[in-house]
């Protein structure tokens, strides 16, 4: 490689620059540095502020030390990459423009094989925007967003026709979506995405691998459309709420495998709409956890050809629900004699083989009513709703047809390794509050007996 010589040339070329940065307060023009660098060279940015709005039009590496800041000054795109094999690392990218029409970004890439890693993005509209940048790597960046109304924000990371790319270990907070369009064979791994609109959003992107991501407190954890051969494994989708509030939604997807994911405290854990969509393709939902969601798994009634096995359903207000009415059939709720674990399974396992001897059915009268009349969800968890279910249990004539039937329900919960804790409050505050309440209660009870002798006389005087 010609890297060594490049460094030497640069060392000479830069002899002036660091001095300049310490000498003057005004920022250094990044474009000048880029123009002065030879193709293939490594630019080592010293701490300081550099003027953005630069275009990298040759293959080179920009690496910062001590967090140099590249400032877009609040207009346009901070760095545009138009040459392949560019690396940008260890810098702070700040203050892009705010125009959604011009798609103002932190870094915008129009060439293949770029590497963007270990950077921090602050006050940018779009964070990283790859348009036609196949085989790129985006890793370990921290991507913030502009503090504007969510629909006016840009996407933290957006890939457009950039197949074979890897998005890994990034932390994206408060942007709009993280989007993948026409980007096949992308790997999305170990990212943390929170407080956005769509944590992950896939359109027409086949062969994706989505693994180990934590998608929390977004409107929707991940929504995937019109793609096939997708593997979604060991992700956490938690506390995605709001009117949509899906942990994971699949629409018109084919041949997908969901395994080891944790769907926790979402409005709807998993939502399936016409997936799988084409003849002969299948959906596999294996060993996932659905806990504390309003609805564990929700389906449009026409959804078929999914197999559920080894999943754990715990305390979802509605374990499985159907949106609107209609006959729901054609999905397997056990595979090779292994079904799923249901926290409200009331059966038994006399032969001790770990499989319940009676089927698990979702046939709550109240939830069947709320599926059909969504307004009635207003009465969730009221004594009245419990009375309705109790009545249906006691008088089978009231019992609706089961939505699903798992003929091999698991009686013990499958082992699940802890992945991430989202515990809210602290025990200490609650303890203090409880003790105060107890003390208050006791004080009320004891107060009058202390006054008994002094007051009694006067009352009866």
């Amino acid at each position, binding site marked *: 490689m010609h890297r060594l010589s490049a460094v030497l040339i640069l060392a000479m070329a830069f002899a002036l620059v660091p001095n300049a940065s310490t000498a003057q307060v005004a920022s250094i023009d990044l474009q000048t540095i880029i123009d002065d660098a030879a193709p293939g060279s490594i630019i080592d940015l010293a701490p300081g502020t550099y003027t953005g709005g630069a275009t990298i039009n040759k293959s080179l590496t920009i690496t910062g030390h001590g967090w140099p800041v590249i400032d877009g000054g609040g207009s346009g795109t901070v760095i545009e990459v138009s040459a392949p094999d560019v690396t940008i690392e260890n810098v702070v990218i700040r203050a892009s423009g705010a125009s959604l029409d011009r798609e103002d970004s932190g870094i915008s890439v129009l060439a293949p094989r770029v590497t963007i890693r270990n950077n921090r993005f602050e006050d940018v509209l779009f964070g990283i925007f790859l348009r036609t940048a196949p085989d790129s790597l985006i890793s370990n960046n921290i991507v913030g967003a502009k503090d504007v109304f969510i629909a006016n924000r840009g996407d933290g990371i957006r890939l457009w026709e950039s197949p074979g790319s890897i998005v890994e270990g990034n932390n994206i907070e408060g942007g709009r979506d993280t989007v993948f369009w026409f980007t096949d064979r992308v790997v999305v791994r170990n990212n943390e995405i929170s407080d956005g609109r769509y944590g992950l959003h896939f359109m027409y992107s086949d062969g994706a691998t989505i693994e180990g991501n934590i998608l929390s407190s977004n409107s929707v954890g991940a929504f995937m459309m019109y793609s096939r051969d997708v593997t979604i494994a060991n992700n956490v989708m938690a506390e995605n709420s709001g009117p949509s509030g899906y942990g994971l939604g699949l629409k018109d997807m084919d041949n997908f495998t969901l395994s080891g994911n944790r769907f926790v405290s979402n409005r709807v854990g998993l939502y399936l709409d016409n997936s799988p969509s084409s003849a002969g393709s299948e959906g596999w939902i294996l060993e996932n956890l659905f806990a504390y969601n309003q609805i564990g798994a929700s389906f449009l009634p026409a959804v078929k050809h999914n197999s559920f096995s080894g999943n754990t359903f715990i305390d979802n207000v509605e374990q499985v629900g159907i949106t609107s009415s209609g006959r729901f059939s054609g999905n397997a709720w056990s595979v090779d004699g292994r079904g799923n674990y249901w926290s409200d399974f009331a059966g038994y396992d006399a032969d001790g083989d770990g499989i319940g001897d009676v089927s698990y059915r979702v046939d709550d009268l109240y939830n069947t009513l709320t599926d059909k009349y969504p307004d009635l969800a207003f009465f969730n968890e009221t*004594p009245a709703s419990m009375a309705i279910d109790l009545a249906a249990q006691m008088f089978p004539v009231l019992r609706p047809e089961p939505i699903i039937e798992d003929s091999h329900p698991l009686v013990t919960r499958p082992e699940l390794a802890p992945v991430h804790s989202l515990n809210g409050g602290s025990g200490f505050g609650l303890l203090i509050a409880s003790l105060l309440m*107890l003390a208050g209660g006791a004080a009320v*009870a004891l107060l009058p007996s202390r006054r008994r002798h002094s007051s009694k006389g006067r009352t009866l005087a």
Partner: protein
Amino acid sequence: MTSVASIDSPERPDLSTIGTIAGKEIRDAIHSRWFWLWTFAFAGLASFTAAVALPGSQVAGFGNFGRTAASLVALAQIIVPLMGLTLGAYSIAGQKENGALRFLLSHPISRTEAFWGTYLGLAASLAATVFGGFGIAGIITVAQGGGVNADSFIRIAILSWLLAVSMLGLGMLISTFADRASAALGIAIFTWLGFAFIGDLGVIGTSVATSLPTWSLLLTAVLNPVEAFRLASLTAFSGSLDVLGPAGRYAVDTFGDNLGWMLFLVMGAWVVVPTILAWWRFNRIGDL
């Protein structure tokens, strides 16, 4: 000095007399089986709920107090109104029946003083029951390693007490109309059934049969203090009403951040209005 004033103008209520009667009422409560029955029932069930719900709500590192809190709210919806209604219903009718009221009013005590003394004493006893129950449930939650926002826990406890007090006022209103304690208790239990079960079931049935508009469901929150309590509690611990589907979102979209204090006002109205009516009625009953 004060007792002289109360003799001269029995119309002007004397605070220390009210306090004395309230104290007597609390002492009576502590010596009554009713009080301990409710205290043990509420504290026991609340602790049981916390003890059972919490271990089930820890899985793979995820905790969820929301479900425990929801269970506590559901429990409070059933027990607390029954507690307040029966205590209130028994109070005046019971004392009328066994002559205690006549004895009390033979002293230089006005009816107003007797009423408010009884009311405040019972309200304080209910506070002891409710806060005691929540306190024990909270300690059990902590003992099991559960964490929760203490702020919302206290708010739910206070809302429960408000519900208890509003039902106490309503119970006393019932009591002023009944000649016998058993009749008052009977009406109180019917009222409780109406608020806790039949009202909601009626709305559910009507909604299925005639597809009521979404907003009309919210009316139940104004017309039924138990519903107002439930919505206020849900708002207190989850900050939104997403749990309640389209109607809940309608409420949040329409009233936004005002929803919390609006529900609080509704509950306040349910505390004040029946009690004032009961007081007014108590002052006009002919024979005690």
